[in-house]
């Protein structure tokens, strides 16, 4: 892809398809790769290529949500998301308690102390349940 517009459209495609299941992701990427290549062969203006990508971006986002949400929901049946989210609790505790005082800071610290461990415990239980 020699046009900067094509490269940007391709980057956008890689980004929004990254949440989709493999089969749908590869299909959409293959179609867009072909489309951008054909656009350049036909010597369409970079502006037309960019405009076509921009006008379709709303549909792209809806497509990504429709593809990605079921996958995200399914992933909560595995330990991975809990392990990934666990460090967020102590981090938010440090941030909020450094910026606030009183009951808010106390609540954030308590949540930070308990939340991460609780999520790791959930991850462990799911791992055990899937293993048995």
């Amino acid at each position, binding site marked *: 892809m020699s046009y900067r517009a094509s490269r940007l459209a391709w980057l956008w495609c890689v980004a929004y398809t990254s949440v989709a299941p493999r089969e749908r992701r590869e299909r959409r990427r293959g179609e867009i790769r072909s489309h951008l290549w054909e656009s350049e062969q036909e010597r369409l203006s970079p502006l037309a290529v960019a405009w076509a990508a921009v006008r379709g971006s709303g549909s*792209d986002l809806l497509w990504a949500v429709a593809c990605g949400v079921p996958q995200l929901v399914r992933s909560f049946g595995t330990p991975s998301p809990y392990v990934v989210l666990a460090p967020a609790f102590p981090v938010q505790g440090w941030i909020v308690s450094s910026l606030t005082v009183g009951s808010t800071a106390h609540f954030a610290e308590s949540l930070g102390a308990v939340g991460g461990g609780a999520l790791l415990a959930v991850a462990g239980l799911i791992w055990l349940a899937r293993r048995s």
Partner: protein
Amino acid sequence: MLLPLEESILEIGMRRVRDGDPEFYGFAMATELEGDDGRRLTAHGTLYKILERLERDGLLVSRWEEPDEMVESRPRRRLYRVSDQAEGALRRSRQLQAGPRLQPKLAAQ
């Protein structure tokens, strides 16, 4: 009921069947939808989402281009063609669109 863009895609697909060249790919469809100059392109996201939906609804069938059909250095194309159900679906959609416009006249009689 089909969207106007869906109807246009099916119409073009059926015309291609009549012309003896039934298969089309996304870029070719985009240029046909935009008219002969083809300088603007139908929005990528809208076009491929609709092609996917029409296929899911059984109105299009698609396949990846085989290696022996490909020109070297060109990315392979996803080839579409209208299914046997497309003509009936298009006719029904047009009938449904025509229906509400007739109702006020019938009510006035």
